[in-house]
């Protein structure tokens, strides 16, 4: 227990130390005040205490960002899983659409900005659209390949035991591709989060962590920008550590079985 805490603590300490060194060097060499870990921490504390940041509290920014992320990602997850299962099920549908998926995959998230603004105008919906578009492809591609890689003998076994099409889909294909679905969702979630922060900087949402960072920059409030960066990292870590890691470990342990047999 003590050892594992130490093991987790060491990279954090190294990171803070490097940050401190860089901050001091930049301040000394270039003469601009680069926020140190300590200053950022203090700022973070007062933001948590309710200090306003571009007209709103930090909580409001976090909440708005999370809401956009959640909505955009949910759309992408439902569409991506649906597409993957459908294309894995029907060869015809896969052949007709797979190339489109590949093209979509080549488009960087931020390149959707003009499309988003043209369709939805500036604001909330455009941001959500961008998140959904960037999160969709990894989910769809992963689910599709998961369904296709599913052992033929699983399908044969199910048919032999009298499974109909519906049971085959719900009781074999869906649970069988769960590991692939999870890894697709994980990548999609990460992509969505990154594009969200970037989109908020540009699309002009009025709130959100990305918006706050860019606003803080205009007002030369770099310490607040750094505090927001810290929040962004923390949110990412929380999702990895407390949602995806436990889920993946559970499924991978169980599903591993016939993979290597």
């Amino acid at each position, binding site marked *: 227990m003590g050892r594992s805490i130490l093991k987790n603590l060491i990279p954090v300490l190294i990171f803070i130390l490097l940050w401190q060194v860089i901050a001091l060097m930049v301040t000394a060499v270039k003469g601009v005040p680069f926020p140190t870990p300590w200053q950022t921490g203090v700022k973070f504390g007062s933001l948590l205490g309710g200090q306003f940041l571009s007209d709103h509290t930090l909580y409001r920014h976090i909440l708005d960002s999370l809401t956009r992320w959640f909505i955009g990602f949910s759309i992408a997850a439902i569409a991506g899983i649906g597409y993957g299962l459908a294309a894995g099920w029907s060869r015809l549908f896969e052949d007709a659409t797979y190339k489109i998926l590949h093209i979509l995959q080549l488009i960087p998230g931020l390149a959707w900005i003009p499309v988003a603004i043209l369709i939805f105008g500036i604001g909330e919906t455009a941001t959500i659209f961008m998140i959904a578009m960037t999160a969709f492809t990894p989910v769809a591609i992963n689910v599709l390949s998961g369904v296709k890689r599913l*052992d033929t*003998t699983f*399908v*044969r076994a199910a048919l032999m*035991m009298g499974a109909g099409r519906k049971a085959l889909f719900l009781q074999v294909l869906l649970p069988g591709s769960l590991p692939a679905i999870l890894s697709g969702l994980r990548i999609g979630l990460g992509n969505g989060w990154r594009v969200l922060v970037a989109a908020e900087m540009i699309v002009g949402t009025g709130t959100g962590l990305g918006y706050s960072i860019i606003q803080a920059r205009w007002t030369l409030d770099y310490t607040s920008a750094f505090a927001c960066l810290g929040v962004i990292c923390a949110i990412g870590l929380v999702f990895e550590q407390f949602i995806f890691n436990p889920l993946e470990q559970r499924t991978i342990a169980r599903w591993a*079985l016939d993979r290597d047999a």
Partner: protein
Amino acid sequence: MIRIENISKRYRYNGHESAMILSDINLTIPEGQFVCLLGPSGCGKTTLLNLVAGFIKPSQGRILFNDARVTGPGPERGVVFQDATLFPWLTVRQNVEFGLRQRGLNNNNRTKIATEYLHLVGMALHANAYPHTLSGGMRQRIAIARVLALEPQALLMDEPFSSLDINSREHLQDELLRVWDAHRRTLLYVTHSVEEAVYLADRVIIMGPAPKSICGDMILPLKRPRKHFSDEFRSVIASLRLSLDALPCCIKPSEKKSGRI
């Protein structure tokens, strides 16, 4: 009763016809007979079994099961695969219940029947375990229970014990005989081991490369229970060996696993 009439099978890759795997096979397997398909690897034993199971379609000829034409897999012909192919996302009991669920049995009846068959194969204590926590021999027992629970009219087994250590294999052979003896269902069993065939079967069909797919058909003159080291047991093995020695030892692999249903 299984009737195999004028069956030929070629595989097709990317539109090209490959070499003939099975050529003009005619066989009748009466109710309750334990038949081993014996032959060098690559001669099409598994292909013939898959045809009877309905997993693949013949290029020519037809297969009748109890006078009805086989058009696809079904629970009246239970299959035990080389790997147990239990569904890793289900517990042992749920795996056995899978076929019962497809039949629309209610929860209580499913649990009752599943427990009964798990008892029969000595796995009742592991009903709530997940397959990945069990050994290969245990999984294969469950695969047998899962198929017996379907109450099939025939069992089709494709080298079910070949990946097990000798000790578990001999145990499972004895248990299979015990279970088979209780109901005397038709059993078609693929093996490449002469000893196994002679220990288990009423009748051994020796297969060779197409175009001469069936090289021998022999009713074993041995009483049950059989002893591995009796003189008559050895002499039957010796005579089967002679027929097998006349065949090439292995034939180029031809059955490719495809990732699609």
